[in-house]
């Protein structure tokens, strides 16, 4: 499956559109353009890995919606081309037809699922005949033609497609520790602690998570925060130190990190080293 996203799952743009219209019970024209765009963008961002086909389909539908809506908001024009007019209706009808199709089969699949579930509660007898009948039966392999065996071998040995997306054409993600520190500082509460997980909420790129981790190590080193991890691989808790407890953020020392997240410094300070032991 191209996508196995955590709930709520929108497996494609139709899914999402159906949800927006039916579940949220909104008139797409009554909600703001930005909300439509946000919903689509959020769904695209949520995808674990990039499937260009699917992303394109999402963007196409989002663009169609935006276009339809934008037209709606424009004041009436007298110079509307009849062909253009018809095309717009065609676009909409096409989208509507596809949505209806999608909904139909979603419901059919739900019933089919129930049926499969119900049927799986009955187990067919497969024991076959007992002796002496078992030995009476002709050898099943005698009924197998060589061709059938070869066909089975080809089926079984056929290379299994593993979808892997070429990413050479995608611009590399540039994540800087400096930016990550700003982000983390903005996310930290005034008082109380948060889990590191919460500081990376919604972040899907591994690299970005690593850079955020480096950022909290740096903040720890700077004496801005306190870190606690009770057990190996356990929850990492981040607690901002109160104004009295901390010293001013030493931005100058950040230069060492540069813009590239090059991993922990070799000459790392004592505190991060201690953290690493705990991690």
């Amino acid at each position, binding site marked *: *499956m*191209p*996508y196995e996203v955590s709930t709520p*799952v929108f*497996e494609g*743009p139709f*899914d999402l559109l159906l949800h927006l*219209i*039916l579940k949220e*019970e*909104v*008139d*797409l*024209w*009554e909600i703001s353009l930005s909300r439509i765009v946000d919903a689509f963008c959020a769904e695209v961002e949520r995808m674990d890995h990039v*499937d260009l*086909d*699917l992303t394109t*389909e999402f963007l196409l539908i989002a663009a169609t919606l935006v276009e*339809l809506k934008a*037209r*709606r*908001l424009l*004041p*009436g024009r*007298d110079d*509307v081309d009849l062909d253009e007019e018809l095309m717009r209706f065609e676009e*909409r009808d096409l*989208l*509507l037809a596809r949505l*209806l*199709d*999608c*909904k*139909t*089969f*979603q*419901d*059919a*699949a*739900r*019933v*089919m*699922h129930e*049926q*499969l579930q*119900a*049927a*799986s*509660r*009955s*187990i*067919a*007898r*497969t024991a*076959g005949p*007992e002796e002496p*009948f078992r030995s009476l039966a002709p050898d099943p392999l005698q009924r197998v033609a060589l061709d059938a065996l070869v066909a089975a071998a080809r089926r079984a040995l056929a290379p*299994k*497609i593993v979808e892997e997306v070429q990413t050479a054409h995608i611009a590399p993600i540039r994540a800087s520790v400096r930016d990550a520190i700003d982000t983390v500082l903005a996310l930290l509460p005034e008082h109380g602690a948060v889990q590191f997980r919460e500081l990376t909420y919604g972040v899907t790129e591994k690299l970005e998570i690593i850079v955020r981790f480096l950022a909290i190590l740096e903040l720890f080193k700077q004496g801005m925060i306190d870190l606690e991890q009770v057990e190996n691989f356990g929850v990492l808790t981040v607690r901002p130190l109160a104004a009295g407890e901390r010293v001013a953020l030493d931005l100058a020392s950040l230069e060492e990190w540069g813009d590239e997240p090059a991993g922990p410094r070799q000459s790392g300070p004592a505190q991060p080293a201690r953290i690493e032991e705990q991690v």
Partner: protein
Amino acid sequence: MSKREVSVDIETRRAVEAIVLAATEPVHPTVMAQLVELPVETIDELCSQLAAEYEAQGRGFQLARVAGGYRFQTHPDAYPYVERFVLDGQTARLSGPALETLAIVAYKQPVSRAQLSAIRGVNVDATLKTLVARGYVDEIGHDPSPGNPSMFATSRLFLERLGIDSLSDLPPLADFVPESSVVEALERGLLLPTGDAAEADAPESNLAAGTARDSADLDLTGE
């Protein structure tokens, strides 16, 4: 269940029960009809009768008509006890996307990969591969149309797993066509301006209140 009682001798009853018990897959009634030298209809009636008896006697097994034939299977109520006898892999669940794709194949067969993708709105290659590997869907040949696309259809195993006799036992697709309220909601959701005077006359009308419907909208929503 049969409408009328068939009266067959005990030998025939025994033979039918014994044959189905000895079989490793559903037994077509014509096979039994030949063996006991009776019309297929009689076999079908006898089987319905036997199935009804088992049910009435509260047996732990059923005589079910599946994929064109008869088989013995466990009663669903006994499932918690027989779970451990289920062969590995049989219970593996199908994902939501796989189920939806399977549903489309079931109702639209024979169907090509491109047709499936068009309906689902997503690439179905991987999903289809899973369904073929699980034996629910077979590639049944190529369409003569340009590009000679592979065509797919559901398999015998699909019928067995679904516990139905034939594709005609699937609930009609018409049952799932969205009801009018849904259609209306979708239509409203995709409402299109007509670009006529309505908007020009009342550019200030409150869109958010949903009151600025023009004549086209009225037609669509049936108001």
